[in-house]
């Protein structure tokens, strides 16, 4: 790996950037030095920007033959010790799902960006959608937990991409930026802070000699320290159910139970530390909007308009989609008489909200067609249920 002053990796200052470019800059600032991807609208600008910027900081960009290869190479680079990322959109994201499971099973820290467009299939390549929010959680086979963050602006594409790397490294889990075409392609002001204000987390390394190292023996926080290839630990990793040595134990129900439970628990039990939401006008809110991504921006406008008209409306914006911010929804729902969930899909996250809101009525405001909700559309829903 070529070394470079990290200063070049952080373009501190005020910029005018698209969400995609801000995401690429966030990755480089977070220490990402490996990107493998395959062109797809509307995520392509992330790859293009990284192709131009990465060599300047001694990092690697490679355009692979497809998305399956891209995520496989990312996992390989992660195991070789680099912070690694790929970026895609729905169709490519679907192709990656099997190897996302491999990253979960082998606890490979990595960041995967899914810039959502309308689906199913090739769908609407140049228009936004929010139709992959269930795929990001449930797309691969088997039981597992991941972390997914949903930026609403170019600024957040920068900030949350750094956060995604930090969480991926902290918990040894594939971490997702799940956004949409509108956030990715909107050009906005982005403030990149000074180098010293950017907090970067690196994976926990083993402190025992190789002879004592068990690659999948967790510490108390349920996360195992991670040796990488070429460091002399000479360990084995496999997508098969494995014991703490990394050896396949596919017939041993106890070993499989212990492993899969830990893979889920390391996220579930740390959910309070991971989950982030934004609250607006929630203190006395009687009618609540739960939204994320670009839709949350229209929702804030709608809530303000409702307040102007005397409706006690509030907004709970989900920044972490997974793990689902259950406690925050429960808390906000406690005093609300209605919750509305506008989404650019036929109703996906609304089910999660319903699941935890229990007695509070939840109303979906689905929207298809490839355009985000207008503030007025959300305001109308607020008014109807206030």
């Amino acid at each position: 790996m070529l070394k470079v002053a990290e200063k070049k990796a952080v373009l501190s200052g005020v910029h005018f950037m698209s969400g995609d470019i801000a995401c690429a800059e966030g990755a480089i600032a977070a220490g990402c030095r490996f990107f493998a991807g395959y062109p797809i609208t509307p995520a392509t600008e992330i790859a293009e920007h990284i192709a131009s910027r990465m060599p300047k900081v001694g990092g690697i960009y490679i355009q692979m033959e497809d998305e399956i290869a891209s995520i496989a190479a990312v996992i390989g680079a992660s195991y070789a010790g680099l912070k690694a990322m790929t970026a895609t959109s729905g169709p490519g994201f679907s192709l990656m799902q099997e190897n996302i499971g491999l990253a979960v099973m082998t606890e490979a820290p990595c960041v995967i960006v899914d810039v959502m467009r309308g689906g199913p299939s090739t769908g609407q390549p140049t228009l936004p959608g929010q139709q992959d929010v269930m795929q990001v959680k449930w797309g691969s086979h088997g039981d597992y937990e991941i972390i997914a963050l949903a930026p609403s602006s170019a600024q957040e594409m920068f900030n949350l991409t750094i956060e995604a790397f930090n969480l991926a490294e902290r918990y040894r889990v594939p971490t997702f930026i799940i956004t949409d075409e509108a956030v990715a392609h909107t050009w906005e002001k982005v403030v990149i802070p000074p180098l010293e204000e950017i907090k970067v987390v690196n994976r926990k390394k083993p402190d025992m000699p190789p002879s004592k190292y068990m690659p999948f023996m967790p510490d108390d926080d349920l996360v195992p320290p991670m040796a990488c290839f070429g460091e002399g630990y000479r360990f084995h990793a496999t997508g098969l159910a494995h014991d703490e040595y990394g050896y396949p134990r596919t017939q041993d129900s106890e070993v499989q139970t212990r492993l899969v439970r830990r893979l889920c628990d390391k996220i579930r039990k740390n959910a309070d530390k991971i989950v982030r939401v934004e609250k607006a006008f929630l203190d006395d809110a009687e009618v609540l909007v739960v939204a994320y991504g670009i839709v949350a921006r229209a929702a804030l406008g709608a809530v303000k308009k409702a307040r102007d008209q005397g409706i006690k409306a509030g907004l709970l914006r989900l920044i972490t989609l997974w793990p689902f911010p259950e406690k925050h929804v429960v808390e906000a729902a406690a005093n609300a008489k209605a919750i509305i969930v506008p989404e650019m899909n036929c109703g996906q996250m609304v089910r999660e909200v319903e699941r935890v809101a229990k007695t509070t009525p939840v109303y979906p405001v689905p929207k298809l067609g490839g355009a985000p909700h207008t503030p007025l559309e959300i305001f109308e829903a607020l008014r109807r249920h206030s």
Partner: protein
Amino acid sequence: MAKIVEHPFAKYLRAAMMPHIWCSGCGNGIILNAFIHALDELQIDLNKLVVVSGIGCIGRAAGYINVDSFHTTHGRPIAFATGVKLAKPELEVVVISGDGDLFSIGGNHFIHAARRNIGIKVICANNFNYGMTGGQAGPTTPLEALTTTTPYGNIEHPFNLVHLAAAAGATYVARWTTLHVRMLTMSIKKLLQRRGFSFIEVVSPCPEIYGRRNKMQSGLEMMEWFRKASVTASFSDTAKAEITPEKIVVGEFVDIEKPTYEQLLYTKIAQIMNVQK
């Protein structure tokens, strides 16, 4: 009491992973043995070697060899190895996998890695079928061969793997059978010393799953076929390097040098960083 002496090659294997899962008569053990002999003869630094495998019987080899190793998803070892090699080009990255894994589901990764000339080394155990899944037809199954999914005889033309590798741009290409143990070991040594994308096909017996459906009941009978049919024709036209019941063309077919992807990549990065200074 007899003194217990550790086998001189014990350091190359993970004792905890034994016994291995391979059937009697299987050629995978011969391939593993040849690989370990090559490592030993070259005194390869085991801390700098990464073995990657895909899914299938030979896919377990990665776990048996006592180095940094990774058992990937089906068909993806080359793509995974590409990430490893680019991230740490100083590592020797070897992919050991089967014909179904590398050339059916993984065919695209193989040709593109060869095209880019990424310096990873691929050893393919070709047993003409999907052994671990119970003997279905694969991309190398000969015409008219009987498998569980070609009960009336295979009608798909098989890949000629050495021809494919050469055409895609591999810088070292060889084929041996598990009968050619010395030649195979020599070839693996060469493979480990080449810089570019290198490929060895090892025609390997699968008596339990493939042989017994095709008039070769035992490993010995399959080896007998290799002995009778093998013809060494090194550096001959790979298009003519066929595998038929009568003739298995073996040898080294390509041995050239050209810049590797990682060389070009790191040179380019150094240039760009220099311009910046």
